[in-house]
């Protein structure tokens, strides 16, 4: 039986009166800590109410009085995460009453993953209102430790079906890091990218090249691969971050796949293969991304390999998609780094 504790936080806002968000977190049978649940509800309600107040008053987030986790060295700072996201786009919680499932983790932390947000259409960065679910994590004391854009429902549900590929705890970690990876593009967070890519990371990017027309005027196309090391990739990413006012990255799982595979050689190494849509101010593309994640240090996993291949070989009009067997998978990639 789920234990439910209702929390209604009425924050007195200094200027314009903004409706406080009610938060109810439901827990599974077996979790019995109503005091902590109450605290988590209060803290989340305070954050969401402040977000909506800042949105309505068209101002920066006032994060000073919020119950945020104080990061230790090397840990992400949720205050920075929120501030940089807010710089990219403003958003507001779509429901006055948020009811979500609380996921207590074995290490004493918590998270919720379906907070409904609407991204602000500002006419340039985001052309229309966009819905985006948000994942919020809490530390052992109930303070908010992370705020990130959730992966689309299709991706998160598929990953949950991976079954024996990884246990629930590990699947949640993988999902969380893929969410962070995606949100880092949106926040243009080069520091996260620097941390998440292994120093010896292998980065392969496919490009479609057209051959010269033959005597009959016919030309063909093929994908050629450019190999980069971490520093080269980050330098290019820095330039992309600087050139584009906004970057939006969307992931989808490939049909018939759950998105995650486990290495046969090392049970702590996982492949994540997804379809990627990249949309930014002055460039867009669609392709397949493969990430080889090394989870030997579970709290600080690294990406050992990233590959990107275009969805279409030739022009999009040609309709010729890259054959599925040609999309990189864990076996191909592990061979490359052995």
């Amino acid at each position, binding site marked *: 039986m789920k234990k439910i504790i209702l929390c209604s936080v009425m924050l007195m806002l200094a200027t314009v009166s903004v409706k406080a968000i009610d938060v109810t977190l439901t827990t599974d049978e077996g979790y019995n800590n109503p005091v902590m649940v109450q605290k988590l509800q209060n803290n989340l309600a305070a954050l969401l109410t402040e977000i909506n107040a800042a949105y309505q008053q068209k101002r920066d987030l006032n994060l000073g009085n919020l119950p945020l986790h104080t990061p230790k060295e090397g840990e992400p700072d949720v205050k920075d995460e929120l501030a940089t996201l807010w710089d990219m786009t403003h958003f507001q919680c*779509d429901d006055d009453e948020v009811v979500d499932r609380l996921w207590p983790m074995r290490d004493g932390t918590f998270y919720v993953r379906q907070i409904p947000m609407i991204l602000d259409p500002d006419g340039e960065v985001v052309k229309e209102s966009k819905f985006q679910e948000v994942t919020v994590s809490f530390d052992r004391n109930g303070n908010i430790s992370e705020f990130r854009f959730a992966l689309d*429902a299709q991706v998160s549900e598929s990953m949950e079906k991976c079954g024996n590929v990884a246990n629930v705890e590990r699947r949640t970690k993988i999902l969380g890091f893929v969410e962070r990876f995606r949100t880092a593009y949106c926040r243009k967070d080069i520091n996260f990218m620097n941390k998440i890519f292994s120093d010896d990371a292998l980065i392969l990017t496919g490009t479609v090249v057209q051959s010269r027309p033959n005597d009959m005027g016919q030309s063909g196309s093929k994908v050629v691969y450019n190999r980069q090391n971490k520093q080269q990739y980050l330098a290019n990413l820095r330039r992309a971050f600087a050139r584009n006012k906004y970057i939006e990255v969307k992931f989808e799982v490939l049909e018939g*796949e759950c998105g995650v595979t486990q290495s046969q050689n090392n049970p702590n190494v996982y492949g994540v293969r997804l379809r990627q849509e990249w949309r930014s101010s002055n460039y867009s593309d669609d392709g397949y991304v493969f990430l080889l994640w090394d989870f030997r240090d579970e709290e600080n996993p690294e990406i050992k390999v990233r590959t990107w291949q275009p969805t279409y070989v030739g022009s999009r009009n040609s309709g010729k998609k890259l054959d599925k067997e040609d999309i990189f998978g864990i076996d191909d990639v592990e061979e490359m780094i052995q």
Partner: protein
Amino acid sequence: MTALSQTVEEQKKKIASIKKSNSYIYAEVTTTDQQQAIDLATDLLHKNVNEWAAKQKKFAGSNKIVTMNTNYTVEQMTMPRANMYRAFMYVKKSDVIPAENVEVRDTPTEVSTASTSKPKVAKVTPISNSNRDEIISQLLSVANTGQLSTNLKELKKKGKILEYDNLRGLKDKNLSEYIMVVFNKDGIVEAILSEGENRINLQSGSFDQLTNYKGRGAIGVKVSK
């Protein structure tokens, strides 16, 4: 009150009250495509019902679980959810009842939207006995033929399955007695179909048949009684 006459805010309140209630199992998905939202929420609801049922003592020893009178409510909210569709589906726990030897008949999932309402659709979801449950649960977690092979060997060793073989090996057998695990040429498992003349796709809960998977391979698995 029908969904038709409900405003978006009233629907939100209703959804919130269901989510807070202990009496319901629910699933909620918001995506850009309405049908995808419905499909994903349906899958998730089945998963949640099965997880809940697996924990209930009253189902122990029951051969089948029947999910009846499942209400499916799909809310279409272009404004409040921007350009996306929110599918919210729920079932009353008291409507999930154990039953023995139920003939499995499935009806297409019907849903109510902001403009239509179709509550109380009978939906039958077979789950079977505990041994079969365990086997199906294990098969559903298998992603590829490598994992399938490992799992089947282990299940056979434990005596939980009588036999398994590919379609050629089952040529002279009664195929309706076998669960079918369908995989593509890359060895990725695409579907797991129940036994019976009218098979159920155990991942989606809908009718499905082997002939829908032309060009794929399949392994038949016979569960020990």
